């Protein structure tokens, strides 16, 4: 089993549109995993039909039993997150601030504090309109642990791969360079970097690439909207050459991206543009590079 992870550092570069197109172009030997759990969009193009839905519990939050509390102030003193409120000797938890560390629970002399599990989201296994299974998730609003939910999605995807004897997991990764993207990258066989020739595109590519280098994962590059700014485009090509990143494809600035999205389709389903051919060649190249 091989894991192909598509990431971009910067948002809005076309990562999900491109990943969805690969999902369409691939053989039936893949499982799709949407690891952009903060703002998952893959389902808009895949029309998932839910097979299994599970709650995702991960973090904890403190609850103070008002009848037991003696107002000793210990919890207030130890909390580093300003999560305990104190008004007229009445102590309560500010849930948005509670980190779930349980320090207050441990120091409470009368056991007035208990830690309860927090519902941090949901994850799903679905059939898609492409007849390829997809594992995806929804992070609870304002919750933490998106990194752990990403890890859960990937683990479930692995199980689905084994169960149905598939060959690849195609991962739509998370933005940034922090905890969710580190989680997206762990265990990756190959990383597809999507960028655009803008000052931000190049900057974010360089940051996320230094992370990939740290992990020592093989990677290839797709430059979207390459004709938007020729100078930035050349800078990106130079950067890729210098770092030895294989260039997989270049896509023109094209309204097909939005048109396809508006119809709920992938770009690879648009016969009237040459983008389909470019993406199809790109996918074949990726499969060769992965094996």
């Amino acid at each position, binding site marked *: 089993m091989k894991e192909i992870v598509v990431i971009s550092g*910067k948002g809005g570069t076309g990562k999900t549109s491109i990943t969805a197109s690969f999902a369409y172009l691939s053989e039936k030997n893949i499982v799709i995993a949407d690891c952009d759990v*903060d703002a998952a*969009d893959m389902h808009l193009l895949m029309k998932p039909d839910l097979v299994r839905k599970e709650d995702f519990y991960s973090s904890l939050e403190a609850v103070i039993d008002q009848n037991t509390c003696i107002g000793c102030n210990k919890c207030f003193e130890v909390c580093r997150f300003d999560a305990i409120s104190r008004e007229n000797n009445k102590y309560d938890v500010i849930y948005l601030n509670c980190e779930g560390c349980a320090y207050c629970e441990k120091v409470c002399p009368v056991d007035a504090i208990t830690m309860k599990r927090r519902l941090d989201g949901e994850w799903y296994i679905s059939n898609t309109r492409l007849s390829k299974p997809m594992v995806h998730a929804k992070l609870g609003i304002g919750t933490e642990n998106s990194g752990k939910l990403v890890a859960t999605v990937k683990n479930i995807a692995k199980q689905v791969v084994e169960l149905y004897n598939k060959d690849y997991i195609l991962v739509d990764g998370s933005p940034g360079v*922090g905890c969710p993207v580190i989680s997206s990258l762990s265990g990756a066989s190959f990383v597809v970097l999507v960028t655009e020739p*803008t000052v*931000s595109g190049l900057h974010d590519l360089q940051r996320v690439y230094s992370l990939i280098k740290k992990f020592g994962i093989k990677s290839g590059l797709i430059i979207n909207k390459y004709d938007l700014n020729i100078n930035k485009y050349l800078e990106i090509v130079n950067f890729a050459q210098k770092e030895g990143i294989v260039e997989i494809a270049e896509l023109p*600035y094209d309204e097909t991206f939005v048109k396809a999205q508006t119809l709920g389709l992938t770009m690879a389903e648009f016969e009237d543009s040459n983008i389909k051919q470019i993406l199809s060649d790109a996918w074949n190249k990726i499969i060769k590079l992965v094996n």
Partner: protein
Amino acid sequence: MKIAIASGKGGTGKTTLSTNLALYLSQKQKTVLVDLDVEEPNSGLFISGDLIEEQVKYNMVPKWEPESCILCGECQDNCVFNAVVKIGSQIMVYPQLCHSCYACSELCPQNSLPMVPNRMGILKYFVKNNLHFVESKLDIGQEMAVPIIAQTIKYIEQKFEENTYKIFDSPPGTSCPVIEVGKNSDFVILVTEPTPFGLNDLKLAVETIRELDKPFGVVINRYGVGNDDVLNYCSEQDLEIIAKIPNKREIAEIYSRGESLFDRISEVKTELEKIENYLIKLNQQ
């Protein structure tokens, strides 16, 4: 007044709006732009200025002192984040997992886990005329964005007066980093684009901001692409659309070069004026 510029989806134009709004407002009054997208901060690519101050930012993590440790294992039991683990006759500390709650350290009977600073990233403060710009950048390999965001907001609160416009370029998404910014703001501007992805992520962002109980409005970027679903959603939900920035290849090209739009594209300036008037009205209420 603290204004967070946020969006569920990345790449909708948060940085474009933040930088141009800050540049525009600073022509009239002291404004500070704060880049809190610490994982991928981009505002600095559009703003130049003189470097005034630089601060390395740290969070506190435990450090094991084997000499005094009696290997009782309490630290492991006291850490719910698995950042402190007893392996054989060793205590292993994983700083990336540590939330700096101090439980392991302060509850250790031998004081064998003192808290020490761990470098998270760097804060830089620039000034150009009336525009002040503060940017924080997470070091590569550091996983947690929230502590450096919180410290940066604290820095801003100490450094700038109440009546300064404070524009927060927020991280994308709906989880902890954006919550940290939202809860410390007076008003949130949600940037979206009129596409299915834009709408889906706008809905998530709206849910998030409602959870925080903060007043907010919507700015539609790339207005003219896609369809009317975002407009319809906003009117159904009774959300105020403060401004609409048109979709133009020229805008994308100017952005790609790292240049400002408000002084080059008149439609952008008109829309920024609308936002300014909205903020003035809000401030008077």
